[in-house]
């Protein structure tokens, strides 16, 4: 089957022609092709480009904030036009109750459709509640009147909900603009609509209308490392990562053909085990889908944009940065290993996450390590953190320094660890000398004796006439 391919920066072949053909045979405009280098990058690209999350978020936040306006207007009207009134007027109360009931009902209805995770919904409610509480408190402190407090709560809650919406939209817009600039292509700033249903219905119809004598689709090339039965699981893992990033359920990532796809059992990859003699007998839309399917591990079809994960890309879904910012500090490799060595204490994890800066988080960990009574455990902890990083965070001063290096003691005086810091005699390409930390026995008195010990000689014997 003739196939035009391009080679990505990672050396993988990209089936650009089959993507274009698939869209063309489904009577869709040719898309911009975004190639992900890994499963994580794929999930992030879909999260950024697909119009799946924001409409739901915007509508939900709007519904939650809906009672704000009538409450504010009612209390404003009450306090402004009728200062002597002691209760809301019938019209105002009715309006508030109606809007509140409608907003709750609409929110519930929309949430059921979106299957929004509890975490995202909780974040919206918490944001609204904190804004309302702040507004009420500010109004109460300033005005002292309960009506002002009600109005302040309504305005505060509304403003926080608005800020949440703006934050969500801004993240997506920034991502889309960056991807568009990188590709040098026009990307819809409002996101692209998923079109899997359009493509799948065509594929399904094409497969169902095949005569019994039609050739089976070719099997995926033998060198592809991804077995067919693994692909739905890969898709599920990518979807889970996308859900973690966006907070919304994804359902758009499926293999185009075969197990786990919607293209019909008849055209499954089980049948694809047999080689086809002449694939040109197949409908054009199936040919394009087969060619694409053979070259990618995952694909998301959007209006005017296609996101591909070429076969052979790294599939490990590792923790990626959270939406709108960096992920929790305790999830980063630099802290994860140390926290694991420290027993993964929940309290310590939260403290590390809450630390104002990495420097303070490091200091927190270093203090824990220094207090460790067991020198063997302490040494493992220092190693997990990195000796140089640990010494700097613990703000330890050397107990002895000479021309060979600097000697440091770590831990209680009765059972300390000893480290000697040395530098390469030869500067590196950038003109600086590489620094090394060597563990030495704590009985050494000087840095020279420590360095001599690392070579198994006495301080007197260690006197190199030349070093490089």
């Amino acid at each position: 089957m003739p196939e035009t391919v391009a080679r990505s920066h990672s050396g993988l072949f990209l089936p650009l022609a089959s993507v274009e053909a698939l869209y063309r045979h489904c009577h869709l405009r040719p898309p911009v092709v975004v190639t992900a280098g890994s499963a994580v990058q794929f999930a992030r690209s879909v999260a950024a480009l697909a119009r799946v999350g924001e409409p739901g978020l915007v509508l939900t936040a709007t519904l939650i904030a809906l009672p704000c306006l009538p409450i504010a207007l009612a209390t404003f009207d009450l306090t402004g036009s009728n200062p002597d009134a002691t209760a809301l007027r019938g019209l105002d109360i009715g309006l508030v109750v109606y809007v509140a009931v409608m907003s709750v009902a609409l929110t519930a209805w929309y949430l059921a459709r979106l299957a929004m995770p509890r975490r995202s919904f909780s974040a919206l409610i918490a944001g609204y509640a904190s804004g309302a509480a702040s507004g009420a408190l500010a109004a109460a402190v300033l005005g002292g009147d309960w009506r002002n407090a009600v109005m302040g709560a309504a305005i505060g809650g509304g403003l926080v909900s608005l800020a949440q919406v703006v934050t969500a939209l801004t993240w997506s817009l920034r991502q889309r603009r960056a991807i568009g600039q990188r590709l040098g292509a026009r990307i819809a700033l409002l996101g692209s609509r998923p079109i899997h249903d359009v493509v799948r219905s065509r594929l399904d119809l094409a497969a169902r209308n095949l005569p019994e004598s039609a050739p089976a689709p070719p099997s995926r090339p033998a060198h592809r490392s991804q077995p067919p039965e693994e692909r739905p699981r890969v898709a599920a893992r990518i979807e889970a990562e996308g859900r973690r990033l966006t907070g919304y359920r994804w359902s758009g990532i499926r293999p185009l053909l075969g197990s786990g796809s919607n293209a019909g059992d008849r055209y499954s990859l089980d049948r694809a085990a047999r080689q086809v003699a002449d694939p040109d007998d197949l409908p054009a839309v199936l040919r394009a889908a087969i060619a694409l399917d053979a070259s990618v591990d995952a694909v998301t079809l959007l209006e005017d944009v296609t996101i591909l994960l070429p076969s052979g890309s790294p599939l490990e879904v590792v923790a990626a940065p959270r939406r709108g910012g960096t992920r929790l500090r305790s999830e980063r490799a630099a802290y994860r290993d140390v926290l694991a060595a420290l027993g993964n204490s929940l309290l310590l994890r939260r403290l590390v996450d809450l630390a104002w800066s990495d420097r303070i988080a490091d200091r927190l960990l270093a203090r824990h390590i220094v207090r460790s009574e067991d020198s063997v455990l302490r040494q493992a902890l220092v190693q997990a953190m990195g000796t140089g990083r640990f010494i700097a965070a613990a703000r330890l001063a050397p107990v002895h320094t000479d021309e060979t290096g600097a000697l440091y003691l770590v831990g209680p005086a009765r059972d300390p660890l000893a480290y000697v810091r040395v530098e390469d005699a030869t500067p590196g390409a950038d003109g600086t000398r590489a620094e090394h930390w060597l563990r030495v026995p704590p009985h050494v008195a000087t840095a020279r004796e420590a360095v001599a010990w690392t070579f198994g000689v006495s301080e007197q014997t260690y006197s190199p006439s030349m070093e490089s």
Partner: protein
Amino acid sequence: MRSLRQGDVLLLPVDSIPSSVMPVPTAQHRGRPCLVVARGERTGHAHTLPADPAITLFSGEEGTSIGFLEVRGDETCLRHEEHRPLPIAAGRYRVIMQRQHDPALARGLAVAD
């Protein structure tokens, strides 16, 4: 004659080389034949000597990080990717690899560069 050092390798002059040690065969490093004194486990860098009949590198006793070197005739150079070449005069040397203390084992271990 005094000792020489290149990074984590120390060459200590000795009068004689024990008869029990065995010569190290020529190996390949970066596509070139040479005598590999020590190879970094993490970086893949190595301290190497030219494959020259006038140079014999001996491995130490099994389980130790100590070897021996004999340079006959002209001066040679110990080379490493991250260090300046170290000139070595003719003579016999004990080759000592740097080690680290392990509080658990309370004995020296070879250092990884």
